């Protein structure tokens, strides 16, 4: 598609878009493509960012499976390389976008500059700055994590300060990609917008997956009859789920996002055990002969569908009322399905390759120190349980409301 239209942009002499903070503005005409045709291609930078976050997702699951089956790793394991590719590719792509937008002299650069934000004298899409921040956070986590190992031992938990910094970085790259696509989506129409929207929802699925990854230690099958598990899901999921779904304006936005998450987790559950692996660290408590994947996904697909249906019915309602209803339906539908499904996960019927409840990490003392097919209560009394469940409901409502705010902001992002 050729650039048929032009738009007049007032720019300062240093190339900034004119505003109260610029002086001596001059006018130039820059070409603006009519961003409606399907023939208009998705920018290569967006594809690169998508490759980066997909690589991070694959690397994350692979790395966990590596730690659960082989144990010993190095900087250069394939799983680590996949995660590092996210930081490198995401960082380089963001850097290229920022530098080419800031210093480029081509018409395309002027066009990008007109749709950019300014930070520390640099110009670029907001998403590129967020992703660049994420790349730097990931790099910073490396020496921090290394020191953490030497000071306190090699941490074998998902949640440690350096790991959270690393995951904050990769989530920032996810969000940067989301905003990059969101801005392009909001500026486009027709088939192109539909295409951007599909990619937007895919990134939303990865963000939900990342959120669920972070809370894995609280959502194992043995914890699913505790209110704490539902509290952490209510804190971690609705913000990203509702925010991205609503911003996409897709009628099945929630369901698609959750489907992406579910498909990714099922894929690692079904594919990784096909590959042989043996522990290289001791003591070994379980006989491991292949990669041990992460557990069966949370049944968020039902809340996803329920929220999409609810959204249509509650569209005229006030935001807070919508948040209360959406948060309540999210938690109620999730509990009503996940709770009985947890019973199934404890039964012998689930100990197969489909549901994978017979997979145990080589260093898991299941069967020796604890019964893996028995629920572990986090709350000591019934009243404590209901108190935590009430907090979970409040959390679901609040994170849903925040999701609405975020969605409204994303919908207006242009740069």
């Amino acid at each position: 598609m050729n650039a048929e239209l032009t738009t007049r942009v007032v720019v300062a002499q240093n190339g900034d878009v004119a505003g109260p903070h610029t002086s001596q503005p001059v006018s130039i005409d820059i070409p603006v493509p009519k961003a409606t045709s399907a023939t208009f291609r998705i920018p290569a930078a967006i594809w690169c960012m998508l490759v980066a976050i997909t690589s991070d997702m694959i690397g994350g699951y692979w790395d966990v499976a590596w730690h659960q089956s082989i144990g010993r790793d190095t900087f250069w394991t394939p799983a680590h390389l996949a995660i590092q590719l996210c930081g490198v590719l995401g960082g380089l792509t963001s850097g290229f976008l920022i530098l080419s937008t800031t210093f480029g002299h081509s018409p395309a650069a002027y066009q990008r500059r007109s749709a950019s934000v300014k930070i520390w004298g640099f110009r670029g899409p907001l998403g590129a700055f967020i992703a660049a921040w994420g790349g730097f956070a990931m790099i910073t986590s490396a020496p921090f994590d290394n020191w953490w190992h030497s000071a306190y031992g090699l941490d074998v938990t998902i949640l440690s300060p350096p790991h959270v910094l690393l995951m904050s970085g990769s989530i920032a790259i996810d969000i940067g990609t989301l905003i990059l696509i969101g801005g392009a989506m909001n500026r486009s129409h027709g088939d192109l917008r539909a295409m951007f929207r599909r990619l937007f929802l895919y990134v939303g699925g990865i963000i939900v997956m990342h959120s669920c990854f972070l809370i894995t230690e609280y959502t194992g099958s043995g914890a699913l009859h505790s209110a704490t598990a539902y509290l952490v899901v209510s804190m971690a999921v609705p913000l990203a789920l509702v925010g991205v779904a609503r911003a996409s304006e897709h009628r099945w936005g929630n369901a698609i996002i959750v489907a992406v998450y579910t498909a990714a987790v099922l894929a690692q559950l079904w594919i990784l055990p096909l590959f042989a692996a043996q522990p290289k660290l001791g003591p070994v408590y379980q006989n491991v002969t292949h990669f041990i994947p992460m557990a069966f996904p949370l049944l968020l697909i039902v809340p996803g569908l329920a929220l999409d249906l609810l959204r249509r019915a509650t569209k005229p309602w006030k935001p807070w009322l919508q948040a209360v209803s959406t948060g309540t339906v999210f938690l109620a539908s999730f509990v009503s399905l996940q709770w009985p499904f947890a019973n199934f996960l404890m039964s012998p019927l689930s100990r197969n390759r489909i549901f994978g409840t017979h997979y145990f990490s080589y260093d898991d003392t299941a069967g020796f120190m604890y019964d893996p097919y028995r629920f572990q209560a986090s709350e000591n009394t019934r009243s404590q349980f209901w108190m935590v469940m009430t907090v979970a409901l409040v959390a679901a409502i609040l994170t849903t409301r925040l999701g609405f705010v975020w969605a409204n902001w994303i919908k207006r992002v242009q740069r």
Partner: protein
Amino acid sequence: MGDHRMRIPSFLVALSFVVCAPANAHVGSADVFYENDAGPYHVFVTVRMPKVIPGLAQVEIRSESNDVHEVRLNILRLSGFGYKLQAIPDLAQRSPEDPRFFVGSIWVMETYDLQVRIQLDGARGKAELGVPIPAFAQDTLRMQKSLGALLLGCMIFLSIGIVSVVGASVREAQLQPGEAPTVKGLRKARTAMFGASALLLIVICLGNAWWKADARNSQTQTWSSNSPNALATLRSDGRLLLRVQGQGELWATYIKPEKFIPDHGHLMHLFLIRLPYMDRMYHLHPERIEGGSFLENLPTVFAGKYQIFADIVDDSGVPWTAVGQIDLPNVAGMPLSGDDSQASEGPLTPTKDDSTLAQLPDGGRMIWERDSSPLRANVPMSFHFRVEDRNKRAVQDIEPYMGMAGHAAFVRSDCSVFAHVHPAGSVSMAALQLAQASLPPAPPRANEPQLVNQRDSHPAMQMTMNVSSPEVSFPYGFPKAGLYRIFVQIKRSGRVQTGVFDAHVE
């Protein structure tokens, strides 16, 4: 030997000794030394424990013969579950200079009762042995200033970066291409940046609290945070009452004095060493009484401040040394009986040269067979002692003392190091028995050394209790430089003889 305490000029005391404060258990000697037969091979194993756990331990294996071709390493639990399955073993590298020496690294991933399983393959077939290692982090490390500065710089950069991103997202992100930010937009952006800064500050504070909590938690996993104290009181009937007071969650939850297991015949091996010159030493074996405390009929004891080292083994096979001090008056106690023993020697002073000859109470003597080269810290070595009778002839009648050819206690002048070592090394015999029990059964070997006393036999004594040997040896390595006193005990004609040696370690 007399009481030498009053002969020492007081300035020497001040110059040479740190007052022995209650040190923490295993007492400064985390590395494990072990010497024994593994099938047809005789090996000396040193396990250099990591500072933090999980962490990397270095395992050194020296074979007596050069027909061992391959050494493989693994880590297993000492007992219970977790000792049946093995990971893919690590291969120890053979030294190019010395074909009998192998070095390998192995990850210690868990704390508490573990064993290093060593598989040997050589000209005389395969063999396997288990070396118990009590695994605890020794300490947590502080961050280097340079790295701290780097990470602080990164944190400031990231913080300013995220606040700037928030500002840009409010100021410009929602403007149409080409549209300039308004004054109102700029004001809103500033407000958002202020709010983001406040939020970030809260996040950093919470992160810092989390970091501190994790650091505190790591500290509670260290040996020093779990080692027990020995609380001793002298009762009016002249008996010493001793209570082992554990620290940390491990002791609060799992380890109970009622469940201690015997280590070479006794539930507790109590060493009382008079301070500050270590001129008297008592090796006693209190009995456990109701409630988990221990009671000992003291022998005749000379007044003074005594350092207490009480060796015990919990029911998982982990050895502990409870540490404490007690001021004792002159005690006119019972005559020594059973396996109890005592020793007297001149004061340990920094000005004294190393001693290699010790007179024994029965008129014989004990000779430390060492060359003239200086002793160095962190070098594993075999300490050989030869026993001669009053006619300077090598004795042929060493008897098992608590089932072994000898016992040695290595004590640093400031009491920061204490190691109770046997001919099999620094491992506890009780733990060693658990490790041996976890091994797959080995076929019986020909030419097994004849044991003096089968009742007293331990796996570890098999190589040392040859009836004709006048020598006893102990594998050990000083953990740090300083002045040490070594008490070496053997038994002849039903009496325990103690040789006392002093050593400067560089």
